């Protein structure tokens, strides 16, 4: 490949959990300052800013930045992957030099929370809400039984996703669910939307995160090991889960990942570490198949057998994921943060010798997807 043009030069998470003293605006500002400190840069260096749901201009002003480039693309939890991709394009085009990619959400404490209205005269409001869907636990889970029916994936295999991921987050003081969870424990937890139980669903927390994206050249001059963006992709399809073209495939993942792998010129064997946004237990199964790491219907057994767990050959969701670590509502920021930590060698559950990490994000209910191929190496071998 050609030399990567952009890199993550700073990365930080805020405190996580229950943060009633911090509004969503505060969380964005906190994340920005932490990420800049990590990069060794100041507010004066920043010319670009991104955020999702919140207007990036409101955040820039609160922070004291007067941006000449901004992006408020709001496509659910994958927004921040999209922002990194867009920031890299802006940097390549010479439109920005140092971009803050920011996330902050007071999902649990609901302080200064930006409203997320669903209009009754929109398509979701007219053709889905009247049937009793109530947020992601009842919408994102809807395709799964068809997948299980067509692939033969068992409920125990589904439950092995949070169980296996709990091996990564076990004992991590920053994890919301730091205990080990067995398959039986997952299956026995409170029913939410059968076949999904509480421990197959992400938790709800407060928190934020920030990334400093700049040119690869500039990143090399800064204090942290640059995390280069080798390739990226984005894709979208139906915003309504009932209108997904195929309930058994994350077709949006397939397209965003293919673009990212092609741009990065990598194949599956090159990938040392994988993050697949796990709002619910089935999403990593869809992701492993959509990204081509396993064949159709093979993901459940692949995870249950430990291939993605500590010691497995494809370490996945090594922070414990949205199911065990944290989930503020738009989790994509935390998937990127964990990839950066692994590539810097500073993760809580560090995988040895990670050079290439793939981050797969999802927005809403497979509606939007973005993929980042990240590396601590300038160019692929």
């Amino acid at each position, binding site marked *: 490949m050609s030399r990567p043009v952009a890199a993550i030069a700073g990365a930080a998470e805020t405190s996580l959990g229950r943060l009633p003293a911090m509004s969503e605006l505060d969380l964005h500002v906190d994340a920005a300052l932490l990420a800049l400190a990590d990069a060794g840069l100041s507010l004066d260096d920043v010319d670009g800013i991104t955020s999702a749901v919140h207007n990036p201009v409101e955040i820039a002003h609160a922070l004291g930045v007067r941006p000449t480039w901004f992006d408020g693309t709001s496509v659910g939890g994958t927004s921040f992957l999209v922002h990194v991709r867009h920031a890299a394009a802006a940097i390549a085009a010479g439109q920005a030099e140092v971009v803050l990619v920011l996330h902050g959400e007071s999902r649990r404490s609901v302080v200064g929370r930006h409203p997320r209205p669903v209009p009754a*005269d929109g398509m979701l409001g007219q053709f889905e809400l009247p049937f*009793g869907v109530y947020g992601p636990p009842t919408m994102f889970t809807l395709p799964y*039984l068809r997948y299980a029916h067509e692939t033969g994936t068992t409920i125990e295999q589904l439950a092995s996703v949070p169980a296996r991921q709990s091996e990564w987050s076990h004992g991590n003081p920053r994890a919301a669910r730091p205990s080990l969870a067995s398959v039986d424990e997952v299956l026995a937890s409170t029913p939410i*939307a059968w076949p999904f139980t509480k421990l197959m669903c992400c938790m709800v927390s407060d928190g934020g995160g920030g990334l400093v994206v700049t040119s690869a050249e500039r990143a090399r001059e800064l204090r942290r090991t640059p995390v280069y963006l080798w390739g990226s992709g984005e894709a979208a399809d139906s915003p309504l889960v009932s209108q997904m073209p195929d309930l058994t495939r994350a077709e949006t993942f397939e397209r965003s990942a293919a673009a990212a792998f092609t741009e990065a010129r990598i194949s599956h064997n090159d990938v040392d570490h994988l993050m697949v946004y796990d709002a619910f237990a089935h999403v990593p199964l869809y992701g492993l198949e959509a990204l081509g790491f396993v064949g159709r219907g093979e993901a459940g057994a692949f995870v249950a057998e430990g291939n993605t767990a500590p010691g497995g050959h494809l370490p996945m969701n090594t922070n414990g994921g949205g199911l065990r670590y944290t989930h503020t509502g738009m989790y994509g920021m935390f998937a990127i943060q964990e990839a950066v930590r692994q590539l810097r060698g500073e993760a809580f559950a560090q995988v040895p010798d990670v050079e290439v990490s793939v981050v797969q994000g999802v927005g809403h209910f497979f509606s939007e997807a973005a993929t980042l191929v990240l590396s601590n190496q300038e160019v692929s071998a």
Partner: protein
Amino acid sequence: MFVSGVTPGEGAAQALPTPTTRPFWDAATEGRLVVQQCGSCETHFFYPRIACPSCGSREVSWVDVSGRATLLSYVINHLPAPGFEAVGPHVIAIVRLEEGPTMMTNIIGSDAVPDQLVIDMPLRVAFEDRRGQVVPVFAPREEHAA
């Protein structure tokens, strides 16, 4: 004419039709299920739009459909939305109409237990009056019934 299955109470979400979607809701109050069909490529589609999503033609018309469908996927919901608190666990499903389009709905006429809810089982539309708004729901259908 209307059946009773999932009957949410005060505070439940109700559709607010727009001029483009109103024919769907008006038909439901008459006990008819309608979708749009493209006059150019003949594709049936749902949700309502001003143009065909398959070919972009604006020549679209409303047609009655058979009301026959199959069960594509579902959850048994234990996390009640506002207004559904007294309903108990209920089935939220995605069904595929015989004519092709898919839609979200509730399954009635069956206990909300997995044994009675078999993927691909045949369904037939029914209509439920929910506090003044009639919504299409689906019930199990005998395979060879008319």
